[in-house]
């Protein structure tokens, strides 16, 4: 009993994780904790603990099958896989919080720049599909705008993004890139049509 009380003092995060696992943590807290989970191995250990306990309470057979090295093993195999990315439909806003964009292979880091996802429906024009679908607006001060403001900016910047694509294509066509396939520019924009005379 005392030990348990101590645990929660030493690891206040763990109690929040316990709520999260039950789906009883608020949206923002969940988002933040899931992010932390992906990076903190101690927290990950607690995630495992909570699920083993749940499994054990419901079925000792299931819990007994726990293989300590399995997760690391799958993780290693996963590292060799090309990162899957699902095409996004229209993004769903959850209770006013913004989705953070995750760079490939890296958990999201808190960022001062606001990233606004531009949903194609915002444009109300079926032909306006920009290959560059997300546009971030970096304001000079680092305060986060309200969701309404972000919407407004997003709508404005999508219209601009259409013309930006032209510059992007022209830039990438001639960009030297790093020495990995010198043709990195081509990799950046396959399918762009170079202009000929």
């Amino acid at each position, binding site marked *: 009993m005392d030990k348990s009380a101590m645990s929660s003092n030493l690891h206040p995060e763990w109690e929040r994780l316990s709520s999260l696992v039950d789906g009883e943590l608020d949206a923002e807290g969940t988002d933040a904790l899931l992010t932390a989970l992906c990076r903190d191995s101690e927290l990950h250990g607690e995630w495992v603990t909570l699920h083993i306990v749940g499994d054990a309470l419901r079925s000792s057979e299931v819990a007994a099958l726990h293989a300590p090295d399995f997760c690391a093993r799958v993780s290693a195999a996963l590292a*060799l896989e090309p990162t899957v990315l699902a095409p996004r439909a229209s993004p769903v806003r959850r209770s006013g919080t913004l989705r953070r964009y995750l760079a490939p292979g890296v958990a999201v880091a808190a*960022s001062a720049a606001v990233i606004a996802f531009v949903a194609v429906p915002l444009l109300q024009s079926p032909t306006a599909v920009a290959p560059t679908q997300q546009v971030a607006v970096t304001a000079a001060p680092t305060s986060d705008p309200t969701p309404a403001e972000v919407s407004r900016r997003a709508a404005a910047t999508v219209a601009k993004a259409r013309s930006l694509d032209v510059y992007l294509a022209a830039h990438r066509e001639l960009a030297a890139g790093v*020495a990995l396939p010198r043709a990195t520019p*081509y990799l950046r924009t396959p*399918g762009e*049509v170079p202009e000929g005379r």
Partner: protein
Amino acid sequence: MRTVGPAARATVALGRWLPLLIMTAVVAAASSAARAQDRPRPEAASQVRTPLQWVQAIQQAAARVNYSGTVVYQAGGDMRSSRITHVYDGKRSQERIQTLDGKPREYLRTRTDNNDEVHCLIPESRRIVIEHRAVEDPFPGLIGAPAADILKLYQVEAGGIERVAGIECQVLTFTPRDALRYGYQLCVEPASGLLLKSQMVNDRFDVLEQVAFTDVRIGERIDRARLKPAWSTEGWSVERSDHRRVDLAKAGWVVPAPDGFRRTKEIARRMGARDAMQVVFSDGLATVSVFIEPGAELKPLTEGVQMMGPTAAYSRRVGDALVTVVGEVPPAAVRGLAGSVEFNGPR
């Protein structure tokens, strides 16, 4: 109460790819579950190079080493794959790139000491567009810039070992010495010097962009038939790219190179439906373009610097022209370059 047998572990590590290297022994299966870790391994340590030598090795390998494989480019929400084949016969370097998603395209490139030409194949309109790259490149024969110059701009350090496409690679970090450029983490195959993975990172180590082989064969003899395009181009129209060299200074434009960057191109061209002049700067790793459109009716993008994945863009009016700067550099650098462009009237 369960144990995981060593046999089970070994099946993981071999993965799907069995690269046939003739220059290095494949470091197989022995490692236990690991993501990228900073663990120096004896095999890679035998390739002891100074940072300068590493950069030179990378530059050489891109032109000199035969390789073929699949490359995946990722940035923002985008992921694109291509198949690449590269052959060097001592005099001439030939390359074929096929897009694996999006519109079908092939880029066939031939490079010699005197010439550098790219044929872009567009099957849906049966066109070939030929572009001659400048032989008068400030860095002839080199990829990017001289290695020594690159080291002045980036602090280069050898890190640990990372597995890419089933091959153990040396990690090299390029830390920018100023705020005009981003950092890079490169993974290099030690024996050949071939770059297998490149990540562009900001100062918080967010990965902004990544290019990596998912499978590759290095150093083998490659059948030249593999350099032939997938389609017969008989009857296709052949066009030359419309880029014409221009002298912007003569036209009255002052476009100073950002610190550490050199001008690699200065052309007039068509861009979509418009005419524009484009100046391209490179520091060997990063590239920035400045577009000048006299008399353009478009409004500048007034909301500050726009980010599209790894690329920043900024516009402003100079006289009656629209100046737009686009590049894979930090937003402040793009804004600064745009701010430094001046028009002094034609001479």
